[in-house]
């Protein structure tokens, strides 16, 4: 394979990989979640659909509506 085609192919592959990472990150950000930070610095994240988030997210929705 000529080197020019190889470089083009690699650039296309890298571009599509970067694009898919960005799209996935944006999609993940749009998911609702609750992050709890403990005093020891640890963090627990509960995404929508989990039992923990089901307890906390309705209160947040209520606060944002009012």
């Amino acid at each position, binding site marked *: 394979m000529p080197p020019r085609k190889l470089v083009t192919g690699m650039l296309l592959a890298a571009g599509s990989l970067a694009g898919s990472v960005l799209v996935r990150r944006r999609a993940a950000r749009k998911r609702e979640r609750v992050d709890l930070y*403990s005093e020891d610095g640890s963090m627990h994240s509960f995404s929508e659909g989990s039992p923990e988030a089901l307890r906390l997210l309705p*209160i947040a929705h209520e606060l944002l509506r009012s």
Partner: protein
Amino acid sequence: MLASVDAAQAIGDLTEISPQVRYVAVVEADGSVTGSNLSDAAAAERLAEGAKRLVDEAQALRPDVAQLEAATVDGSVFVVRDGGRMIAATTTPEPTVGLVFYDLKTCLRSVDPPVQRAPRKRAPKKAAGDAAA
């Protein structure tokens, strides 16, 4: 060290440096609202009461919760605790989480706690012997 300021000034500074923050309430340990940028006192009370419920529910899951963020598509709710006091805020969607937490902590620590007046002591009554002398 942070200089202590009144709640209105601290909240004004917070919303100026952090435009992502919409509404804020500083809540004392007894649940009273020390300061808020909500013009309606009832709305400030609702924010404080909702934040308290959020913290209570979070503590049932993790007993040592110091701060939390509930992120929704409409925006986020942040609560930061410092001792018995806490600050609650709502923000625009997808805020810069670290910055908001930092600004809320700074705001809470700079707000003066309400002055607790010590009960006035009565002067001891003069002894009967003193009055006679």
